[in-house]
Structure formats: structure tokens, C-alpha cells
């Protein structure tokens, strides 16, 4: 391999000028979300599979109560509202409207936390236990997986809110909002998937 030196000049720091630092973090976060999407795809496949094979007719055993659509709608509504506030904040930072960015992120964060609390409460009051057959097991796994991401994402949410309120994000430099946005949007989308799946492919088979 032939190389030529001297084109770049001596660099004292490790930040070489040819590297797109922001692009690097975007690619990394995108890949992380792709990995997470794969996990969700396998969960969805397991749901479809177990429902399809309906072993011993125990996917949705007789006498099992179905989930309460009102509650799941509220839960998903909170999540989507959080996502919409984030979209607003993201738009605002690209326009350079600092106040709206702070408002949007703070609201999005509060709604995220509200979703988390509501989800935990909702999980504790399901009309069935996780030991209640195939649907029950998958539903608990889905909801639990979502709650797990809401919990782990708290670190992102708190950090982003603190840093936004500190005024760190400008029109020119707002990589944190963009990249955490990928994670944020994915958690919202997965919440919506978890909401729609039992509607499109419901527990009760007849």
C-alpha cells in the first residue's frame, strides 16, 4: 500500500480533520437501533408463530380476559405525545428557536417518564398473569421489553433534558438531539407496534 505523508500537517490532537465526528455517532446510533429492531422482529415473529401453532389450544385459554383497550390507548397515547414533542423540539433546533427546543424536550421527557410510570402500573394490573398461556406470556414479554427500554432510556432522557436546558444545542451543533432522537423514535414506534399487534392479531382467536 503506497502512502503519502505531509498532506495533513502535524496534528496534536486525536481529532483528525477528515473524520466526520457527528456522522460517526449517527452511524453508531443507527446501528444500535437496527440491532434493537432485530430484537423486536424476533419478538413479533415469536408472537405470530405461537399464535399460529396454537399448541393445545392454549394460546388464549377459555376464560382468559382480554386486555383493556382504553388503558393501552392511554399508554400508547402518552408515548406518541412524547415522540411528537420531541419532533417539535427537533424541528425547533434546526430553525434555531431555543425556547421551543427547551420546552419541547422538557415536555417530551416528562411524557416519557409519565409513560414509564403508567406502563409499570398497567403491567401490575393486567387482567391475566404471565402464567396464563401463550398470549399472556408474549404480551408480558412485549410490555416488559418496552418498559425495559423506557427505563434504560431514562439516562438519555435526563441527560438530554439537562443539556438542552443548559443551552448546549444550537442550529449548527445539535448532534445529541439528532442521535438520541433515533432511539427516542424507535421506542415510540415499538410502543405503537406493541399496541397494534394485539389489535391486528388479537389474543382471542374467535
Amino acid at each position, binding site marked *: *500500500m*503506497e*502512502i*503519502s*505523508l*505531509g*498532506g*495533513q*500537517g*502535524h*496534528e496534536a*490532537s*486525536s481529532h*483528525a480533520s*477528515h*473524520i*466526520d465526528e457527528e456522522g*460517526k455517532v449517527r*452511524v*453508531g446510533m443507527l*446501528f*444500535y437501533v*437496527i*440491532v*434493537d429492531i*432485530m*430484537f423486536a*422482529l*424476533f*419478538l413479533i415473529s*415469536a408472537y405470530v*408463530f*405461537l399464535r399460529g*401453532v*396454537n*399448541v*393445545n389450544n*392454549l*394460546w388464549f*385459554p377459555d376464560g382468559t380476559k382480554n386486555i383493556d383497550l382504553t388503558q393501552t390507548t392511554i399508554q400508547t397515547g402518552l408515548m406518541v405525545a412524547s415522540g411528537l414533542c420531541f419532533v417539535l423540539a427537533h424541528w425547533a433546533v434546526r430553525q434555531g428557536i431555543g425556547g421551543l427546543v427547551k420546552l419541547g424536550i422538557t415536555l417530551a421527557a416528562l411524557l416519557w417518564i409519565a409513560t414509564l410510570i403508567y406502563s409499570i402500573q398497567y403491567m401490575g394490573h393486567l387482567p391475566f*398473569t*404471565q*402464567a*396464563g*398461556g*401463550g*398470549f*399472556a*406470556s*408474549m404480551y*408480558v*414479554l412485549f410490555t416488559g421489553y418496552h418498559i425495559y427500554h423506557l427505563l434504560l432510556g431514562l*439516562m438519555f432522557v*435526563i*441527560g438530554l433534558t*439537562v*443539556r438542552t*436546558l*443548559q443551552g*448546549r444545542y444550537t442550529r449548527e451543533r445539535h448532534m445529541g438531539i439528532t442521535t438520541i432522537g433515533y432511539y427516542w423514535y424507535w421506542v415510540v414506534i415499538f410502543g405503537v407496534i406493541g399496541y397494534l399487534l394485539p389489535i391486528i392479531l388479537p389474543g382471542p382467536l374467535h
Partner: protein
Amino acid sequence: MSWTRKLVPSYFSGAVLAAIGFIVGSQYVWRVIGGVNWDLNDPGASGNFLEQGFLAGFVLMTLGWLIGIGAFKYPFTWMLGLKDPDHNEELRLAGKDAGIIRYFRFTTDHKVVGIQYLVVTMIMLAFGGLGAMLIRTELMFPGAWAFPKETYNTIVTMHGMLMILTIISFFVGPFGNFVIPIMIGARDMAFPRLNALSIAFLIIAMAVYAFIPFMGIGDPLTTGAGVQTGWTVYGTLADQTGIGVDALALAVILAGVSSQMGAVNLITTVIAMRAPGMSYTRMPMTVWGSIGASILSALGTASLTVDLVMIVMDRVFRTSFFFAATAGDFANNGYIGGGSAWLTQNLFWFFGHPEVYLLVLPAFGFVMDVTSVFARKPLFGYKTAILGLMGVVVLSFLVWMHHEFVSGFLPELRGFYMASTELISVPTGLIFLVLLGTMWRGRIWMTVTMGFVFAFTWSFLIGGITGIYLSDVPADVQLHGGMFVTAHFHYTIVGGALMGFLGAVYYWFPKMTGRMMDEKIGWISFWGIQIGFNGTFLAMFYVGLQGMPRRVADYSPLFAGGNLVASISAFVLGASVILYFYNVIYSWKAGPIAEANPWGAKTLEWTTPTPVPLENFGEIPVVTSGPYNYAEPATPSGVPARGVEAGPAIG
């Protein structure tokens, strides 16, 4: 005293906090251990609580480890909006002026992480190899003469899973981390902290794994400790077996997370941090092979994680992902069924098949690279080789049900999987053609590494062709679950991935340690490995064709001769691998000092001085041609990049 400051945070403080975490997490276990009631039919039984205690212990052990090594320091600094670390802080975290302690702590320098991976994976290989020697001891004679059968089952399971976990990280861990950033002209990986985290996760995964043989001693439900399900850990059996399976599940989940982190890191590094002029078609093949493996790891590992999480949920929370029939009622540890055996098989093998290509793809890339170096010829068909590697990546997701031909799934589907499995030999064949074309009419310099390349060619050819036999449904119906399968995958994994790894250690040893490995010991260990390896697994093909099943401690005297030959050869193999390890250790301490480019290779890592400086390059080089242009005048050996001094002493 400065040495106390150096110990905190470090792996030592991590270990202390991990131990504390385990004790705190499992103290429920300690409280009840005096009067453990194992009877799961008894409503007052503590069986489930023992599991929950261990699981809580392991989770807190992992958290304690991560806190103790200081992995949360930067995330919390970031979260609280505190000042970002400046360049000096980053250099300090990379181990500048830290001396040898930087190998025993959370260090972001990719070269340090690479050495850490090398040591950890070699220790894992040693333990996996120990398991292999125990297996061959048992199988030396018919009859379960050496171990109780349940213990043998645990040894088989642990050997299998440990070797798989080892080989997943074998290549991309040490060499993906140490060499690839330098190879593409970068100063470090894209996410150095994530890199340090991935090795930390692997270490704690192995700590959890080490618990397995001791879990379940005295459990009357399973007459033997550990895990007896085989490495595939099918949920249907895993749900009902001893508590060792919880440790296995958690260890594998942690190791999978480590692998996925490394995969994301590597792919991002290659996409975003190549030197100017280093286009995708000027990257060495090692990088392409490692990218292929990383794609497979990133996309496929989730399937295994889902499977293992479901097993743990079934066991601890009585969900029924894999329990088909109802049992008891919830108040008495009961559950309602609805689970499927096919679910566990499909989830496992959807990961399991890409996984085996993950094991071997870096070796594919490496042997192509290194053949060009030692044949002093350009690579024969660079783009063909990429087509081959990426073809394997894509097709590997379409073949998984060939592991389930006898599971009773819809017979009409079997043809598709037979065809796709046979089809995957085409891109693999392209790689072989590139390899052979590179060797053809080259003036080959027979180093130990080149020996391993030839060993790879021979072994993977046999492994691959026997895979074609197994892809054929009628043949597989006969051979499934037999020793023929075991011999096939050992030929591909050991003969492919391990030979590549051993060759790579010999090849990059001068750059990583500053010394050359001893050539005489190298050749002796090489030939011992070849004789031992081929003796073991050719004999195994033979007994497999005769009909010997796998995973059995006791077999019919019909198979005695073949097994005796296999066992003796296996001991030769084991001794030779020990000799290879001895060579590594001895040469690290006392081998001849290496020059910067002992092989006269043309890839970028050989343009740096040895030891490699902390930030790799004084100035990032601008690449003006490909990595295999041996038609050009010889690159002068050992000319360092301008503006660079030699790095800190290694070790």
C-alpha cells in the same frame, strides 16, 4: 500512594464490587440455604427462590463489576451535564503513562483492549480445550467409565458453549481491535469507551459462566450439577433442568451483548474513520471479513437473546413460551401451556446458523490477506472475494432450518432449505478460488502462518464438503444427531476459524508485542496440531458413518476402535495447543526483538513503528494504492510514519 490511586477504578475494584453485588443480590439464597426445600410440588418449596436468588446475585454482580471498573463515570458525567472530558483526560483514559496497570482496567486504547481480548480469549480457549480433553477421556472406551453421565452432559454443554463464545471473539476481539483501526489509518475505534465496555462485558460473562458447574449440586430433580442440555439449550429441556441453565443463559446474553457492541463499533469505525484515500476497495480483506462477521453478530444475536430470555422467564416467572401443556395452578408454581418446541429451535438456529459463519468469516478474510503477503502476489480477484464474503453473509440467514430437518416441520419446506444450504457453498467456493488463485505461481515464503493457511484450506474444504452431504435431506435424516455432524463442524470451526486465529497470532505477534514467536516451536506445535486434529476428527467421521450418536457418554463397543484413535489424537492435539500457548508466553518474554515490518507486508499497520505509538500515527497517511500491490517496488521495511516516536513499552 500512587499505586492505590492506580487500583481504583480498575479490574480489581470491579472484582471487589462484583463480589459484593453477588452476595447482596443472592443473600436471600444464603438465608435459606440451611433449609433448602427443592420439591417443586410442595407449595412451600424454595426451588424458584433459589433461582431468583442466583439471578439477582448475577445481575447485581454485573452491575457491581461495571460500577467498580468505572464504566458509568462518563455516562453519569454526560447525564448530569457536567464538563465533557478534554483531550488530556481522554489520553489518561487511554492509558497514557499508566504503565502495566492499563491492561487491568477500563482502558480505551484499542491496542490495550486488543491485548486484553487476546489474553481473555486464550484463557477461554484453554478451559474449552480442557473440556474437550475430558470429553475425549470419557469417550476413549465404551461405557461411562470416567464420569457419571450427567456430569459428562454438563462437560459437553460447557465445552460447546464456551468454545463458541471463545471463537466469536477470537478474531475480531484481539485483531479487530488492535490491528483493524491501524489497518484503515485511524487513531482508534469509533467509540473507544464502548470498546472497553465490550471486553468488560466478556469478562463478567465468563465470571457468571464459571458458576455453572457448581450450580445444582444436591438438586434431587437433576442428578448432577451444571447444565445438561447441550449447547443448543432447547427451551423444552432447559425449562425443566437444573438451575445451572440460568447462569448459562445470563452468561451467554452478556457475551452476546459484548459481541454486538464490538460489531457496532467495528462497522462504524470502518464506515467513518478510514484514512483519506482508503476507499472501500483498498481495504485489506481482513477488514471485509471482520465486517461480514460484525453484520452477522449485530443482526443475529438478538434471536439467541430472545430465546434465552424466554427460557429464564419460563423458569422463574412460569410463562409458557416452551411449555406446551398445562401444569398445576399459579399459586402452586403452575402455569398454563401453549408453548412450542419449534419456537425454541427456530429462535436458536436463526441465530445459530449465521453464528457459525460469524466464526469463520474473519478467518476467510485473514487467510486471503496473508496469502498475498507470503506469496508476494496481488490478491486474485478482490471484488470476487468481497462478493464471496457478502454472499455468505446474506445467504447465511436463509438456511437455518437445515438444523431442524428431523424436527417434524412441514416437509414441503425442506427442499428450500436444502437448496439454500447447497447454494451457500457457491460464495464460499469463490473465496477458495481467490485463495488458490493467489497462491498459484506465487513464490511462497513458508512461515508458520502460511502453514496455517494451508491447514485452513485443507480443513475447511473437508468441513465444507461434508456440510454439503449434511445439507442433503435424506442423508441428514440418517446422520443428524451423530458424530458425523460433530466431525463436520469441528473441521469447519477448528479447521477454519481456529487455524486462522493461530496463524494470525503468529503473524501479528511482532506488531502487538515487539517480539517474534519462536519458529521451531511454532512448526512443532503446528504439525502436532495438524496430526492431532485430523486424527481426531477423521476417526470421528468414521464412527459417525458407522452410526454413533453424539452427546452420549456410553456407546456401543462397535465404535470402540475409532473412538480410541480419536481420543489419542485428541491428546496429541491438546498437547500441541499447550505447546503453542507456551510459545506465545515464552516469546512474549524472551523472543527475538522484531523489526517494524518483518514480513514485508504492505498493509498500513506495518508502516507504524513497534511498539505502536498511543495515537498510532503522527500524521494520518493518505493512501494512494491498494494493499496488495506487490508488483510495485518493495516497500522499505520499518520506515515509520513521519513525525512519530515509538510508543510506550508494551507490557
